[in-house]
């Protein structure tokens, strides 16, 4: 068996072990935060692929997350019964994209099927990422950072300023998402264990996809871009195309995370699109070691879980700011590396030598 498989088995073992521990200690409620963590992790591994392997920073991934989440939320809550006569409603209904469900007041809501909404969300995100990615990825360094940040802010502003999307209140009462009969993504506490496995199953599937990608022709091409883009270009590697593909892929990961978490939470608010969220994701990738999918995954698991549990209190943002600085100053290749200790030693040695000069 190859080490790649061993890691995946170890990871799945951990996921199962955590569930068994919570069961044994009668503390299944931890699975709520762990499920939310899983969806954020899905975004983080996609972002890790983009930053670590394609070498392109994005400070706008919360934007893609929200595009996914908001489209799913809007389509599954917006009542179409007022437009019943319209041609598009009839067409959608015929295609089986609509469904009727009772609302809070006892009336009937005619909304889009969660499956259709999810696919629409992913498709729209992919198109947006493709359109934005084209010009954005031509930029480098500060310009790239600022352009992606700008994209994120625009999405935040639109979400916050649009009445149809609930403006500052966001969208509530988003229904569950039945993937298959009997299997539903929702925050209902009776479905907690199932949702835990759905979420981490998705993350595992995402990891398999990305790991295979890294060890393929695409991965080697990306590595060459990260190393020396101009040289890669000269070798005839279509760098722009590979970068764009990775960008779109990571955006779709983010959107999928947004769709799932929105159904799980039963709603979404503008805070999901905020710049601070994007910065957090980058911080997690950075501390995981930039080009280290497993590192990013475990750091996301730990930090998101602690943050969602409220362990950082009023210092939540400060903790992430502090992590960013410390990691970038002392361990720009991340924490989860064995040569870390020797690095620290070298650093201090270098400092004293430098001080004498």
């Amino acid at each position, binding site marked *: 068996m190859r080490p790649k498989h061993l890691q995946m088995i170890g990871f799945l073992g951990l996921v199962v072990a955590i569930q068994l521990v919570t069961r044994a200690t009668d503390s299944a409620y931890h699975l709520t935060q762990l499920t939310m963590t899983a969806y954020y992790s899905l975004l983080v591994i996609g972002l890790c692929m983009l930053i670590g392997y394609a070498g392109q920073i994005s400070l706008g991934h919360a934007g893609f997350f929200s595009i996914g989440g908001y489209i799913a939320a809007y389509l599954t809550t917006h009542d179409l019964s007022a437009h019943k006569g319209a041609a598009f409603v009839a067409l959608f209904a015929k295609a089986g994209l609509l469904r009727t469900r009772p609302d809070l007041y006892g009336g009937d809501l005619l909304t889009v099927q969660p499956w259709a909404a999810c696919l629409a969300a992913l498709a729209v995100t992919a198109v947006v990422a493709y359109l934005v990615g084209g010009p954005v990825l031509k930029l480098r360094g500060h310009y790239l*950072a600022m352009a992606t940040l700008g994209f994120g802010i625009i999405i935040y*502003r639109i979400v916050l300023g649009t009445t149809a999307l609930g403006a500052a209140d966001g969208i509530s009462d988003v229904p569950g998402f039945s993937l298959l009969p009997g299997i539903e993504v929702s925050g209902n506490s009776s479905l907690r264990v199932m949702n835990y496995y759905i979420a981490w199953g998705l993350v595992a599937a995402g990891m398999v996809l990305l790991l295979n990608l890294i060890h393929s022709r695409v991965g080697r091409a990306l590595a060459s871009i990260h190393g020396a883009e101009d040289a890669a270009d000269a070798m005839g590697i279509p760098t722009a195309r590979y970068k764009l593909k990775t960008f779109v892929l990571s955006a779709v990961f983010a959107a999928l995370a947004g769709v799932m978490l929105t159904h799980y939470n039963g709603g979404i608010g503008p805070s999901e699109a905020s710049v601070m969220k994007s910065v957090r994701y980058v911080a997690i990738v950075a501390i995981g070691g930039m080009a280290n999918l497993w590192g990013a995954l475990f750091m996301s698991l730990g930090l998101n879980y602690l943050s969602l549990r409220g362990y950082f209190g009023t210092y939540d943002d400060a903790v992430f700011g502090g992590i960013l600085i410390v990691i970038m100053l002392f361990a720009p290749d991340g924490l989860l590396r064995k040569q870390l200790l020797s690095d620290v030693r070298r650093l201090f040695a270098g400092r004293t030598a*430098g001080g004498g000069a």
Partner: protein
Amino acid sequence: MNIDLFFQYIVAGLTYGTIYAVVAIGFNIIYNATGIINFAQGEFVMLGGMTAVTLHQILPLPLAILAAVIITMAVGALIEILFIRWLDRPSVLRMVIITIGISILIREASLHIWGEGVRALPYFTGSSETSIRLGGVFVSPQVLWVVGISAVMVILLNVFFTYTLPGRQMRACSANRDAARLCGINAKNMVTLSFVLSAGIGALGGSIVSPITYVQYDSGTQLAIKGFTVAILGGLGNSAAAVGAGMILGVLESFSIAVLPAAYKDVISIAILLLILFVRPSGIFGSSEAARLSEF
């Protein structure tokens, strides 16, 4: 739209524009010395304003502002020495992330020091109601103070960079760092100096606009984004152009609300930023050669 209204929008635009330009100049000074975009620039503005308001409780206004500027300069120097000076040729990505981290830390520290409340210095002359009438247009005297002090600041900066030794050394460093070092200039000290200068400019800006805009622990981020837009619009590193670009963005924003809901005002300015980045990254006043995108 009648003519008075037109000029009223222009005045509003120039007020925003001046504030943005001050932040942009701070960006440019550090960029010229180091090739770094300091994402914490907006926090210098906030720190300056907050400190000045706090000191004004015990000091007269001009002294409070002076002291706030000096304190913020010290913070700027400290940040450079602690976080940037000893890094050996850091990558751009690393610097972007570090300065973002610094901005978050300053913001959160301010929240815990000063709380969430808004603060403001008093109007330098008159009060919040006073306005000077120019034809059909009303202008607050504080706007004149802001524009006047900013203009003096730009002139003094020009003098500093053209005629004084440290100013010329800084320019030498930004033109060619290795050559400057060979001539015996201590490039590292020049970088520290650039942080001190831009912290001071930010703090002064933050103090003089605080009667108009107020200051709060999180007001830096907003300003940093606008300032950066203006810096790019004018061409990174070009401070004179930043003033022009600031005015253009300010006026555009001010007129945008005449046609679009005000809630989307920020979308406009950022969309302009993206457009400029995509089409003409050297800025509207810059030459394409100067952008040297591949280097940074």
